[in-house]
């Protein structure tokens, strides 16, 4: 059995291991050789092997350099795993706000396929005062395309007001046709907001905008800035320890497992964006003293805006796995001074025996196991140390819709030699997995079944594979258990029919 991570003995250092740079470079060359010339050239810029920290310049937190081209158009016809701006806005940022009705404005499909799929947990009476796991659509027909959909949209909003009177606002999530046919949803929003004295937010998140979900996040953030902030007189008494949690979508209850910790160290979470959030939590955000950002990618924009306009500082944190939880809690506490810092140390000390128990249980079963990740948002880097807390090693990681600043931050996490792949195609991912044969792959539902067919354990790392939460201490125990049950499942040993194996045949023959 290998030693526990050093942090448990009070020395904050992460796990040491090496990845095979030469082999990974060859894998990249091999997949590129299969593309037509033009596509090979485009894809080559998205694939790399992390080099040593010496190449990374001045950043003191950096342990490697893993720069690739990112946030540019996907190559047609290669099976990108990416989604669209609508997915980034309705699916990620707006959809979880529970007391609003989010209209998928356009044809039926977008809302149908994204209905209840992100597991944004919330408490409320669905259909009465909360609406997250419902599919509201204007269900465009041909005549709406030909004659425009604004009149229909007005009627949709009127009918929502009548049938769902306790909804506290409406967002209009534009699907592709809206921007193409020249509808003026902003005018509709203004008119209907006035008529019904409610908040109506038009969001121009048509799926063809941008190159991935990412622009949808940005557009959604801007819509909050332009259509929610500073619109109402808020009755709210701010306090000295008020924080907003930004970019925690409460998948499988993540935000709750985080909130319980933040409250325990003495902070007051006055808004959670946007999992289990109400519109009121969004409206009052500018009154907080600090913005805590979990998913930097999807909500850094509004945090920067709040910094500029309301002078609210922001900081990133990471609640995956005890190593990062401790570091993040201390970092957050530092902002509030000695009283909170003392409480934080008490909280950390309280959870240490629990962390030891989890690590003791799973380390022998998981240490040395090699993991490949391909996810979105913050997770391709943030979960790395949670795996390392269990002795596991990351051999490859990449982002569906990351930008340069994500890859720069990834250098704070990955070891030299780690395979880096941006907007990976299914072809590349399959070849990389085949070549590396990792012990676990963490990615999405589209990747799950091909990988499992290959006999390689898999966990969905968008939806937590219908498990969770994974944030906070409570979540770490679940995370560890889930990785163990995936990797050490007996099913992987049953793939080969014994009659294809000479030794098994001989044993039967006696």
């Amino acid at each position: 059995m290998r030693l526990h991570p050093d942090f448990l003995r009070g020395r904050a250092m992460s796990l040491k291991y090496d990845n095979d740079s030469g082999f990974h470079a060859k894998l990249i060359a091999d997949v590129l050789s299969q593309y037509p010339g033009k596509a090979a050239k485009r894809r080559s810029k998205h694939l790399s092997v992390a080099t040593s920290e010496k190449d990374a310049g001045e950043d003191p937190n950096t342990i490697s350099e893993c720069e690739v081209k990112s946030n540019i158009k996907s190559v047609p016809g290669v099976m990108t795993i990416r989604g669209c701006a609508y997915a980034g806005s309705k699916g990620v940022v707006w959809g979880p706000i529970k007391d609003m009705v989010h209209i998928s404005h356009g044809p039926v499909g977008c809302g149908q396929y994204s209905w209840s799929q992100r597991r944004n947990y919330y408490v409320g009476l669905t259909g009465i005062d909360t609406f997250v796991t419902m599919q509201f659509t204007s269900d465009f027909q041909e005549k709406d395309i030909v004659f425009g959909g604004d009149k229909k949209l007005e009627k949709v909003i009127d009918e929502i007001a009548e049938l769902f009177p306790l909804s506290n606002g409406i967002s209009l999530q534009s699907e592709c046709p809206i921007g193409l046919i020249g509808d003026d949803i902003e005018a509709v929003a203004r008119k209907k907001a006035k008529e019904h004295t409610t908040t109506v937010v038009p969001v121009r998140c048509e799926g063809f905008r941008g190159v991935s979900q990412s622009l949808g996040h940005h557009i959604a953030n801007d819509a909050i800035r332009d259509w929610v902030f500073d619109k109402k007189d808020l009755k709210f008494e701010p306090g000295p320890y008020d924080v907003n949690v930004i970019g925690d979508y409460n998948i499988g209850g993540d935000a709750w497992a985080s909130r319980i910790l933040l409250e325990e160290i003495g902070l007051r979470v006055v808004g959670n964006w946007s999992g289990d959030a109400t519109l009121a939590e969004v409206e009052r955000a500018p009154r907080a003293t600090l913005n805590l950002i979990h998913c930097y990618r999807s909500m850094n924009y509004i945090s920067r805006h709040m910094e500029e306009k309301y002078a609210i500082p922001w900081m990133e944190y990471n609640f995956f796995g005890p190593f990062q939880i401790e570091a993040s809690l201390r970092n957050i506490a530092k902002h509030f001074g000695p009283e909170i810092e003392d409480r934080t140390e008490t909280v950390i000390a309280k959870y240490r025996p629990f962390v030891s128990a989890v690590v003791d249980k799973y380390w022998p079963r998981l240490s040395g196991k090699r993991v490949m990740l391909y996810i979105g948002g913050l997770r391709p880097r943030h979960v790395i140390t949670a795996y390392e807390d269990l002795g596991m090693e990351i051999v490859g990681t990449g982002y569906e819709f990351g930008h340069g600043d994500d890859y720069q931050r990834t250098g704070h996490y990955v070891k030299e030699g780690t395979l880096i792949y941006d907007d990976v195609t299914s072809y590349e991912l399959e070849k990389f997995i085949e070549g590396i044969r990792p012990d676990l792959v963490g990615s999405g539902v589209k990747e799950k079944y091909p990988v499992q067919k290959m006999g390689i354990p898999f966990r969905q790392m968008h939806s937590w594979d219908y498990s969770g939460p994974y944030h906070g201490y409570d979540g770490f125990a679940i995370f560890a258990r889930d990785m163990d049950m995936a990797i050490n499942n007996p099913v992987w040993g049953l793939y080969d029919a014994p009659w294809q194996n000479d030794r098994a045949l001989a044993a039967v023959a006696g």
Partner: protein
Amino acid sequence: MPQSAEKTLDHAPLFCEPEYRQMLAEKKLNFECPHPDQVVSDQREFTKTWEYREQNLARQALVVNPAKACQPLGAVFAAAGFERTMSFVHGSQGCVAYYRSHLSRHFKEPSSVVSSSMTEDAAVFGGLKNMVDGLANTYKLYNPKMIAVSTTCMAEVIGDDLHGFIENAKSEGSVPRDFDVPFAHTPAFVGSHVDGYDSMVKGVLENFWKGTARNEATATINIIPGFDGFCVGNNRELKRLLDLMQVTYMFIQDASDQFDTPSDGKFRMYDGGTKINDVKAALNAEWTLSLQYYNTRKTLDYCRDVGQAATSFHYPLGVEATDELLMVISEISSREIPEAIRLERGRLIDAMADSQAWLYGKKYAIYGDPDFVYAMARFIMETGGEPTHCLATNGTSAWEDEMKELLASSPFGKNAQVWPGKDLWALRSLLFTEPVDLLIGNSYGKYLERDTGTPLVRLMFPIFDRHHHHRFPLMGYQGGLRLLTAILDKIFDNLDRETMHAGVTDYSYDLTR
């Protein structure tokens, strides 16, 4: 703290722990600005009333919880039923991520589809370049025998011409000149996934049949299954029956292997499906049978145009619909229905007779695709049940007429109501005002089960929250047994749950039922 390493609580039990209960109660009180509890509970009660039902049914624009998807999903499913065929959807790429996820969540299987990844510039200039590059990349990387092109609504709104684009791509060498690239325009703002299925199958047939001389082969039959989440079980069961009858048949579009590949260490991007050569030969068939009329209206017209005889069914299942299917096949193939099948039929009837007392007079709400709802209503009436609400969001007025005719044919249908074009929020009202004993539909129905207490039997695509049901057939007499058992299990489980309160209701908690 509630969590421990020994007994790890995940979300369901974890958030029931007192620490979390209290935290969430305080969050609500201090930060959510909720409506007063009384207002919320009043509104909840109001949604159960006739008054709310009337407002709800009078909606003209808003659609809430529809039971339909968009055309390209059907096209992608259709393409998955042909040999080594890659689906290529021309338009925005996010749509493709959605289709793939949707199919994978139901089948628990890979779903491989590519997009031409059109973005803002393509919206302005058209997507020709995306088509040219995309086809070249797909051809090279994924080694398909055929690439089946359909469209997202973006490409439809800007009016991209698939035929012209594909010709251009061939001229530019994206794929060889003689490589098969059938296509279908599948606008999401027309019809639903069943129409996308229709267009894609027709596109494939046209690709191979157009301009080819037909030499009719007597007594040969094409079978088009339609969009079917149970294709894995159903297609295999039908083939077994047809083999027993020694009929000469060909499935046109068969995704049963594609969506049920084995786990043996190898990922098969393509598996099974109708062979290209068989699609070509299918032109010569005397008959084409569609198992789902509303999925194949254009395709069957085309089959008739080329000179085939064609007829259709409504997702035949249960006793009489299966009888009819087999008799039609027997008639046109001049093959007798063998004794073995008659015995299977008898076993289904035997099971129905054994259980009839538990089924007689039960009221049902059935929703889903038009052919499915028709089929289920018919089967329910065979069991002595009453289909009280029959709802298809993608049902037309023609479907409404057919349903009414079916329901009028049996005394068990006399109280039935048919709801074309309505959604599941409308059904919620109906279940409050005119309640039923059982709800038959798909996973989305679980919200109706929660709100109205009506037990849900999942028998249609998509089924996300139960595993492997689709691997078993619903069609044929064997499938009838499966249907019967699924419904009975729901009735018995429900009865047990209601009667298991010790010392209160457990006098009825009978060992034998």
